[in-house]
């Protein structure tokens, strides 16, 4: 698998340029690349239609929040899988928290519909062009994005389980 990863990196850097594909790494055998927000959709299309790589399965789409990385707080990690070559790939992209806009990939993968809604619900990441970007798991009236690091796990309005009793 290592030479396949190397092959993928070389091919992508040749096609998109070295400045667009950075942050190359390998984590327990899975290749990861970091790209800018604008490169996501062309990269996905390229990998989908590639003659030999054939990354045509989107396994997962995870949002992530790094409050310390100024200008790049909210990120999305796309997990791609090529079923024919049995190779996985992680594509990471980051955006600032003031304007967390990513392009949607629902045009290419129908499965990204709910995955992107979940990332929006949990982190407030806006997917440009999504057909129905509303909350999916939390109540519709919720006004904050709970999985961001600044919010607590417990319900802010509870009055019986106070922190003093629980040693916090």
């Amino acid at each position, binding site marked *: 698998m290592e030479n396949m990863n190397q092959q993928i990196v070389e091919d992508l850097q040749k096609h998109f340029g070295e400045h667009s594909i950075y942050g190359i790494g390998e984590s327990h055998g899975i290749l990861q690349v970091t790209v800018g927000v604008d490169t996501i959709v062309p990269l996905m299309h390229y990998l989908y239609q590639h003659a030999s790589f054939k990354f045509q399965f989107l396994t997962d789409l995870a949002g992530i929040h790094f409050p310390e990385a100024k200008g790049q707080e909210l990120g999305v990690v796309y997990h791609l899988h090529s079923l024919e070559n049995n190779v996985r790939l992680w594509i990471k992209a980051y955006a600032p928290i003031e304007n967390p806009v990513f392009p949607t990939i629902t045009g290419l993968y129908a499965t990204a519909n709910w995955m992107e809604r979940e990332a929006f619900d949990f982190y407030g990441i806006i997917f440009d062009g999504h057909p129905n970007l509303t909350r999916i*798991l*939390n*109540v519709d009236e919720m006004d904050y994005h*709970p999985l961001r690091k600044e*919010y*607590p*796990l*417990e*319900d*802010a309005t*509870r009055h*019986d*389980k106070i922190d003093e009793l629980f040693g916090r």
Partner: protein
Amino acid sequence: MSNSSVQVVEAPPGIEGQGFFATSLDHLVGMARSNSLWPLPFATSCCGIEFMATMASHYDISRFGSERMSFSARQADVLMVMGTIAKKMAPVVKQVYLQMAEPRWVLSVGACASSGGIFDTYSVLQGIDRVIPVDVYVPGCPPRPEQILEGFMQIQELAKNESTRRRHTPEYKELLASYGIE
């Protein structure tokens, strides 16, 4: 008659004679109600699977009179809430409870329905007794079918010993008013 090992249930207190048995209406109605409770299985998560095990032939809840699971709230006697109730689901539980006709009982099965369980989070209702009045709580995560049956038997005790006027008493109305239910 002589050495039969069948245990006969005790009759309620009353006056017996040739061809008649006189008892109070409360006892008669209580006996009838407690042995024919139709539950509404409001199964949301893992406790629902233990309820399926209780319904299956090994633990068989229909021995206790609940042969027919009523999914229509209007025809149900016991609301068995089994599983985690999230805040999104709380209005639904309340609406189902409001649709039930008196007399109605509520059995809260599992730690999540009783008190929020292991999920002390922003999205889980910390116990259904925040929205509806509960009669019996069955703890466990999930409770074994024997525990669910014990909870059900306690509801049967409540049904058997309840006065037929209970639902019209001011205390009961006050209880419902505290939940915002008319």
